[in-house]
């Protein structure tokens, strides 16, 4: 794993909705990498530019704003979009055009993107302008599954996942409700 400063640009960007800067986007050998600054994980997004990755990350965070959920889960959620962009040229174009449009609608200003807009209301207004279109449908349709269908996320929401191997819930609290 290359050192972050070795090649290409480094940009540090936090999640505006979440607070502290966390994910680092890096260009390594032409591919965008999302890095945990603590070095715990890295996700390669070889068909998205750094800018596109940052916009998609912020967009998914705004679609599904869960304060308790760490950025890593949002980063993983956009991976299928990257992979589809690699397989399918029209998806790649759809994402590129949609991101450009979102940037314009968010009134980010010259050289800036949706991800740079600090005001959540402004970002939400931009999403509302695109939510009937195919870019939104692609991003939403993919990430509503890829975000919530991460087993490591489930305990945070209080969902216990697969049950048969544990003998079902017959002896694990299927009827333990005590507040009624």
């Amino acid at each position, binding site marked *: 794993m290359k050192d972050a400063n070795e090649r290409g640009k480094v940009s540090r960007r936090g999640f505006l909705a979440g607070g502290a800067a966390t994910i680092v986007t890096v260009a390594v050998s032409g591919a965008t990498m999302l890095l945990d600054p603590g070095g715990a994980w890295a996700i390669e997004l070889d068909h998205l530019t750094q800018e596109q990755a940052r916009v998609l990350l912020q967009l998914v965070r*705004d*679609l*599904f*704003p*869960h*304060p*308790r959920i760490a950025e890593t889960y949002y980063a993983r959620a956009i991976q299928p979009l990257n992979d589809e962009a690699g397989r399918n040229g029209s998806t790649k174009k759809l994402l590129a055009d949609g991101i450009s449009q979102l940037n314009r609608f968010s009134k980010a200003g010259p050289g800036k993107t949706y991800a740079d807009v600090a005001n959540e209301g402004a970002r*939400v207004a931009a*999403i509302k302008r695109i*939510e009937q279109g195919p870019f939104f449908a692609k991003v*939403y349709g993919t990430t*509503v*599954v890829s*975000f*919530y*269908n991460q087993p490591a996320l*489930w305990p945070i*929401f*209080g*969902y*216990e*996942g*697969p*049950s*048969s*191997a544990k*003998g*079902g*819930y*017959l002896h*694990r*609290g*299927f*009827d*333990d*409700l005590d*507040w*009624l």
Partner: protein
Amino acid sequence: MPAKFDLNDSSVVVIIGSGAGGGVLANELAQRGISVVVLEAGKRLQMSDIKNDEVAMFGLFTWMDPRTTTGTWTVAKLWPTLPVWTCKLVGGTTVHWGAVALRFQEHEFKPRTRYGSVAGANLIDWPIDLKEMEPYYERAEEKMGVSGRNGMPLLPISNHGKVLFAGAKKLGYKEYRVPTMGINSVPHDGRASCQQTGFCIQGCTFQAKWSTMYVEIPKAEATGRAEIRAESQALRIEHDAKGKVTGVVYADKNGVQHRQKARIVCLAANAIESPRLLLNSESSMFPQGLANSSGQVGRNYMKHTTGTVFAVFEKPVHMYRGTAQSGIVMDEARLDPSRGFVGGYQMELLPQGLPSFAQNVMPGGWGRERAWVLDRYANVAGLWVIGEDLPQEKNRITVHADKKDQFGMPIPNVHFDDHPNDTAMREHGYKQGAALYDAIGAKKIVKVPPYPSTHNMGTNRMADHPRDGVVNRYGQSHDVKNLFVSDGSQFPSSGGENPTLTIVALALRQSEYIAEQMKKGAI
């Protein structure tokens, strides 16, 4: 040991579909010594393929051949490429069903007589009545092992049920209980009892839930007179110059077409594919579609009036724990036009795991309000309104002239507009469902529009007169004596009950009739 019949063996009964209708019929006929070939479009899964994974199982067993949908129903807007959720595998939709096993009420067999003439609704009475159906309901419940009947206790009450019943009681309802279900509460028929797994809808890994996949199909095969041909998608039903069906053309898993000859053909492909097959089997003798002199093939499509109410509480519910649909409130199932609609509805538990809930709680929804609900997923309870919708001629399955599937066959369109009676019932159900949860301190209520239809009925309906329907009181085509309809497309009305038990009862009855007619040489 399973049979194997020659394609040119015209003595066999060919059944299209292996679900509640086709699977039961296959077993009944085979047990009576009749040779049967079941053509099942889907794969044969092993029990090891059934996993507690909502997304994976959806992808594995859902019928996803292309369909379109039109009409004012909200499904056309929210689920434009998936108007219907039924299954494509050996066992059909019985692998997926929630196992609520209810008999129709007496008046639901006679809606034209009991509701009167309703403008815009194509009401007719069933040719049969509850009295005639009772022995078959009885036998169906025995064969399936319905808990709450025949000495098998009802399943126990879960957390989710406790919430439903507390709200029902507060609201003054009386008819709330665990429903009779096609799920073992004790070991029965060589299958385990329910372990409260919570993934009923994804397939029961313990086989506690009845399904033709592991009950009727293996029993049929064990007679040596039934052959189940999986990955065999029926394309056309053929007939001779006398107008009798002679066989079924189907495609195998490589897309190669074969013709299985038949003495009798029974259509049990569920209520979209069964009429589609008849329409795609049009010929110069049957220009409107095979067996469609009435013009009713594909028409009168019903899917129950449905809607979901979710409620967020301050304390945990864990709705995903335990048998999914093990709670029902039946007070609104009565016939009571003073409420502003005819027909009645049930309120049934309908939990979801997190991945499904995220997709369904507010379809297409996003942002803080939705995230607030999702953050409290563990404290969510939900009920499903499921009630009688009225048949309308214009609600129908048609086939496209120009859109074809992977086998070159015209694909179906599902058209549906709500009838004012349906809308009034749904609004009432939303109001009562919300009131039920509000009565016990819900912090927030979310009303969800109908999901892709899991109950599909009416599209080859029974009628005494050949002008009014496609089949007679035995599901036998009026036009073609050796052609039967054996699935829910036979229903002239939808009733306010989940359809599977009635489909099974009808299949038991039809198997007797077919066997008698064959013995007499009449077909």
